[in-house]
Structure formats: structure tokens, C-alpha cells
């Protein structure tokens, strides 16, 4: 009876369309291909590896998914030098030493057994995800490409079996399969062993229409003409002919930030002058800012002929 109640209470998606709608309700506009990947990751209980340029919404997807499924979001931010004890578990050595002090005079073997108990184990995101009670958790392993290559090996058992083996305690298996999303900016190629265990999706820059929808949802008070002009400007920047001139073109995050800045400056229509004044929001490289010359800005701002 309890199990049935659990099943009924936990949110599930029955089709790709349901995923699109659920994410849209949380303010995330997923295209059909992305929604299909998410749907399959949920149904096949496989981790999802998202790759893409920075600022295209990889991390936001995990947040929106966690909200829509009413699950806890656990985040493991990867960095150079990340170790197993920061990602999986760590023994509370201070408490263990105190235990040893208190147990002075006891049998050495029994003391050794006592200090390796569950209560002296500190859970880190991976173990937390495994131990999370129903409806489970969404685990975001963010920017995995920033972590050292050997660290990937620690993840293999978790990604394949949703379990962690602690030599002193044994294997801990997930009661509810956590939804796992890995993101990478492709600064380096990930190990094949990781990729084999995951579903893969390349998250591209959104289409102009989708970007306009995102801007309208994120900034409901923004003038329609302004958001349309921003979407047009950004989409033209991302066109292959223009794109080559820049090290990195703005992502969705940058276009939202730009829109916020333009609203804060009471802008109604974008002109070349304001583009130059606010170029630092769109581009983070000095060369990119200088590449944005007057002629290019004028071309990008030219209204469409309908």
C-alpha cells in the first residue's frame, strides 16, 4: 500500500511533450531533441551528459528538472584537484580520534570496528544522492571537464550501478535512482568509460524564436520591441559568417544579462552607441569587444525586411 502511494505521489513523465510542458512551466524552454534526451534519461535510468558552449542552459536544465519533479537538487561543482572525499564520502577523523580516546583500555580490534561506523561517515553529494529518500534527488555534476582525469574513475561505479563501495562498510545501493546530469564545456575530451555509461546531448545555442520566448518569460516587464531586437541582434551574432570574428559568442545567460542592463538603462530601442557602451556584458574578451566595430553593429541592427 505504501509503495503504491509512493508511486502515485512521485511525478513521472509519460511522453516527450510532457517533459517540454513541465520544463516550460519552470521557465525553461527545451527544444524537442533535448526533451527527448531528458525523457530517455528518466525512463532508461541513465545519467545524461550535456555538452555545449558556456551559457546555453546546461545547469539551468538540472534546476528546472529538479523543480518540476519536486526533487532535491544536489550539486557537485567540479574543479581541478577535486578528490574523492569531497565528492563521495569522508570519515570524520576528529570524532573517530575522540572515540579512540574514550575507549582507552578496550580491545584494539573492537575499537577499530567501532570507529568505522556509519555515524562517523560524512556524506558528500554522491552519497547524499544515493541515500536520498523518495522521491529521490537530482544530482548535478557540473563542469566535469574541469576535474582531473583520474577523478572520473571514481564516478564509474556510481554512474553504472548507482552504488558506492566503502571498503570499511561495504556497498551502499541507491533505494531510489537519482537523476544524474553531468555537464561539460568540452575544455577536454572525457573518458570513453564515462561516455559509455551516459546518454549524450549536445546543447546548441537556441533559435531566435526560442531565445525570444526565454527573454519574454525571464523579463516579463521588458518592452516587446526591445526583446525582439535583442533576439535578432544575438541570433545574427551567432550566424556562422559573423561568429568567426569572435572568440566566443554570447550565450543565453549573456543575452538575459544584456536585456536586464538595457532595461535598467531605460532603453526602448537599441542603437550602435548603446551596444558599444554595454558590449562588456556580451563579450568577456577584449579582442571580441574591439571586433564589434561600427559597421558590424549597424549591420546587425538593421531591421528585417518582411
Amino acid at each position, binding site marked *: 500500500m505504501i509503495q503504491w502511494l509512493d508511486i502515485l505521489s512521485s511525478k513521472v513523465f509519460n511522453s516527450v511533450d510532457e517533459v517540454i510542458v513541465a520544463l516550460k512551466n519552470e521557465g525553461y524552454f527545451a527544444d524537442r531533441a533535448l526533451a527527448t534526451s531528458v525523457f530517455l534519461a528518466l525512463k532508461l535510468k541513465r545519467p545524461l551528459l550535456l555538452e555545449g558552449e558556456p551559457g546555453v542552459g546546461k545547469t539551468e536544465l538540472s534546476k528546472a528538472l529538479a523543480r518540476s519533479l519536486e526533487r532535491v537538487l544536489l550539486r557537485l561543482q567540479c574543479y581541478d584537484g577535486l578528490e574523492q572525499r569531497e565528492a563521495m564520502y569522508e*570519515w570524520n577523523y576528529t570524532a573517530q580520534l575522540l572515540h579512540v580516546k574514550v575507549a582507552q583500555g578496550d580491545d584494539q580490534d573492537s575499537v577499530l570496528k567501532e570507529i568505522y561506523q556509519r555515524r562517523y561517515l560524512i556524506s558528500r553529494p554522491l552519497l547524499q544522492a544515493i541515500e536520498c529518500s523518495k522521491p529521490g534527488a537530482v544530482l548535478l555534476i557540473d563542469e566535469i571537464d574541469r576535474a582531473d582525469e583520474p577523478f572520473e574513475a571514481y564516478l564509474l561505479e556510481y554512474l553504472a550501478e548507482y552504488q558506492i563501495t566503502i571498503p570499511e562498510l561495504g556497498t551502499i545501493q541507491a533505494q531510489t535512482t537519482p537523476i544524474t546530469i553531468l555537464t561539460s564545456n*568540452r575544455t577536454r575530451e572525457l573518458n570513453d568509460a564515462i561516455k559509455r555509461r551516459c546518454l549524450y546531448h*549536445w546543447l546548441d545555442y537556441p533559435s531566435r524564436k526560442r531565445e525570444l520566448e526565454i527573454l519574454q518569460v525571464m523579463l516579463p516587464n521588458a518592452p516587446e520591441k526591445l526583446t525582439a531586437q535583442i533576439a535578432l541582434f544575438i541570433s545574427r551574432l551567432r550566424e556562422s559568417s559573423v561568429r568567426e570574428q569572435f572568440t566566443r559568442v554570447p550565450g543565453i545567460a549573456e543575452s538575459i544579462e544584456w536585456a536586464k542592463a538595457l532595461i535598467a538603462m531605460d532603453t526602448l530601442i537599441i542603437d550602435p552607441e548603446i551596444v558599444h557602451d554595454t558590449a562588456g556584458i556580451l563579450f568577456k574578451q577584449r579582442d571580441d569587444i574591439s571586433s564589434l566595430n561600427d559597421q558590424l553593429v549597424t549591420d546587425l541592427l538593421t531591421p528585417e525586411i518582411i
Partner: protein
Amino acid sequence: MQTQLGDSRSGKLNENLLGFGRALRRVGIPVDSLKIALSLQALQLIDIKEREDCRAALFSVIVGRYQDRQVFNDLFDLYFKDPNLENKLLGLMLPRNQEKSTHRKKNNRARESLQLFNTKQLNGPKNAQKIELDASMTFSDSDRLKNADFNTLSHIEYQLVENLARQIPLYFPKILSRRYQVSNVGSKLAFQKILQQASRLEGDPIQIFRQLRKKTLCRY
């Protein structure tokens, strides 16, 4: 038995997926049997009538590299041909307006992988004895590739590029580790060793041990 996937007794989908997997392998995308099984499972979960959903599902399951995206899409288009192709061909016979061609350059790798597959099937042992003489002028591999367009390389040319790229000597010496400078900060505490020793001495006194510094693998 009529299912969502059609007649499951004929096993058409299985055959098609296996063939598609073999073609992908031929173009250099690694596909193992697990991926084929998983892609079959994935197709059963989505609406198979939606061509783009199938494409996204197969891509998600089979492909693991950004570089393989274009080849996968080309091969998908070639292998799972548009069911409305006949109508489109009929439409071509009608008078039409002159439009700008929006077709991008197709990748030869995908087309060639299917051609290889077909010729292998057609050429049986009958043609095994056939000797062909190629009297055309030949160039060295590097000369052939000097003016080649990377986006339209054939499967064999692609392998050639890979082999040549492997032969290029690296300008910089290979650094085996990033940690090549000893930190000024003292090494970390070896808690496990401290704990073991403390349990032996019953916690009195607690000896402090430090982790050994990692050996530097750099040659500098």
C-alpha cells in the same frame, strides 16, 4: 504481433538498427552491441512515427562526441530515407520558382559507408578473381590531403588524416603531471595513519603523521 513498433515477428526494426550501427562503425563512430540494445529500448519508449524524435533518441544513445554529430545526421538521413521522398520527387516534375539552394555540402563519409556495405553484399566470391589495374596518376598521402576540404572527406581520406596526424611530432615535450612545483605549505595530515596508530596506543599520545608528498613526474 502488431505493436507500437509494427510487426515484431518480422524484426525489421532490429535489422535496421543493426545495419545502421554497422554503417556508423564504418564511418568511425564507435557503436557496441550494448548501444544497439539500448537504442532499441529507447525507440520503444518514444513515438516512432516522429522522425526527429527517433533521430534525437538514437543520437542520445549512440553518439558520445560532438565531432560525430554531422556524420551521424548525414548517415541518419541517408539510411532512414524520408517516406515522403516519392511525393517530393513527383513535386520536382512540376514547374517551380527559381530558389537559392540551401543545401550544405554533404559529408562523403556517410555516403561511402553505405556504398561499401552495398558493394560487399553484391560482390560475392564470383568476382574474387577479378584483377583491376589502376593506371591513374598517384600522389603521396600528404599531397592529396593538402587541398582537401575537411568537411567533405571520404572515409578513407579521414583515416589517412588520422594516421598522418599521429605521425606529427609534438613540439612541446610531454608533461606527465601538472603538479611540478612543491608547495610551500606543509603536506596534509594522514588521518588514517594517525587513527591506526592512535588505536594501537589507545589514543595516548596522539602522534601526528603527514602524507607523503606526491612525486613529481615532470622532467623539469
